[in-house]
């Protein structure tokens, strides 16, 4: 499925829509260059999951975890990972990612996922490719 969003607001909305379909245990892999809107999409996703805390770039810390307090949802954690600075998958193993991958109460979303393909091998992954569109602020988002 390919979607073109016209501005960051629409990208956030798309993230919210994706969130509505999640049941827990999903791994979402994002691929796209600097400025492609990956963090923006995740802001929407987090909002859709009921997270009120501001989602900031995890580049510096590699991994940030957000708790979801909504009683009705099975999803209790959103783990936001950024592989921008990583050389390979082992580094994610070192910071304890395995504990969350596929956990039924957790949604893991990984920016720059193409850098850590190895850790995702054999797992069910929702792969999303993003790039800057033609018009100002446009983003092309392809869910594979």
């Amino acid at each position, binding site marked *: 499925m390919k979607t073109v969003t016209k501005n*960051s607001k629409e990208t956030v909305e798309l993230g919210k829509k994706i969130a509505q379909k999640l049941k827990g245990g999903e791994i979402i892999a994002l691929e796209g*260059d*600097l*400025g492609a*809107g990956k*963090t*923006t999409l995740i*802001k929407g996703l987090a909002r859709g999951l009921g997270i009120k805390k*501001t989602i*900031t*770039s995890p*580049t*510096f*810390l*590699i*991994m*940030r*975890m957000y708790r979801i307090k909504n009683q009705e949802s099975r999803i209790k954690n959103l783990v936001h990972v950024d592989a*921008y*600075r*990583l*050389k390979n998958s*082992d*580094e994610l193993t*070192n*910071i*304890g990612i395995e504990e969350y991958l596929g956990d039924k109460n957790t949604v893991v979303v990984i920016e720059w996922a193409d850098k850590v393909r190895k850790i995702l091998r054999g797992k069910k992954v929702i792969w999303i490719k993003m790039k*800057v569109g033609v018009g*100002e*602020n446009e983003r092309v988002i392809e869910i594979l």
Partner: protein
Amino acid sequence: MILLGIETSCDETAAAVLEIKGKKYKILSNIVSSQIEIHRKYGGIVPEVAARKHVEAIVPVVKESLEKALISQKEIDLVAVTRGPGLITSLFVGVEAAKTLAFAWQKPLIGVNHLAGHLYGSLLNTESRQQKADSRNLREIKFPALCLIVSGGHTELVLLKSYQDYKIIGQTLDDAAGEAFDKTAKLLGLNYPGGPEISRLAKKGNPKAFDFPRPMINSNNFDFSFSGLKTSVLYKIKDLSTLRPAACGASEDGRLKIKDLKVMQDMAASVEQAIVDVLVEKTIRAAEKFKIKTIMLGGGVSANEKLRKTMSDRAANVLLPDVRFSTDNGVVIALAGYYRIANHKLRIKDNWKKIEVDPNLSL
């Protein structure tokens, strides 16, 4: 009181010995083993490499800090260590080392928030450089005070009512200011670390050549947003490639790249101006609202000359950290440890058991 400060939250392995007597302080040693050269070739800090380098460096760095200070471990009253926020694998190295020392030496240990270090860094008075080992007075804060902490991982405006009573009143909603420098630098094909590279080019550029957005500069809060800058730089380069194809080319990673030096300088100057404008404007606005008497800067980006000059031009009583204390070091961690226990009695010996790493620690 003599403190040993240990810092390993990011890419510097640092240890320092600091003596404080009343309002006077003396830096007995300040050892920083930087990994910038190592990370430069990867275009940024690689966490796994960082942790391994910390492991190699921590013992020699601590040892050297004691030797340079000409003291033995017996004379140390308190060990202070950064326990967060930062890279978990890097933080562990410093914290485990500090715990081991505290246990072996039977000294009290205190866990320090990395940001608290940056909060107090500008209190180290650095005017008379030649009298290096002499005691100096800590600069005085007139409260309420405001500290802008800006680095690769942080952009926070902190309101201080006293040395111990502070809270964050604004922060970035997406990318940190230093991250904005690093990532736009990457888009411009510059080396890591991006901030100093952009500043270097910006010196010869025209900051008005390109019009970059100043997001949230007029918003009614003290939060920041820098992620839009990347997009804006992307489009500016794209536009340029059609308007002035001769000035552009493709780089190895497939991105469009600016070839023309003048254009590059102008672009760098304009990016720097956009980031500085937002940081300064928001700080000044907060200063007016809270009737601030002292403005302080801290964190790696506070080494940026344009930011320092613009802030000093706009407000009175601005305390700027010495560039040595802008970037990560053990001295400010020791100082933060000092302020943390200043109002308490030292709980001796076994408290090393309680110190834990927290990569998401908030101020």
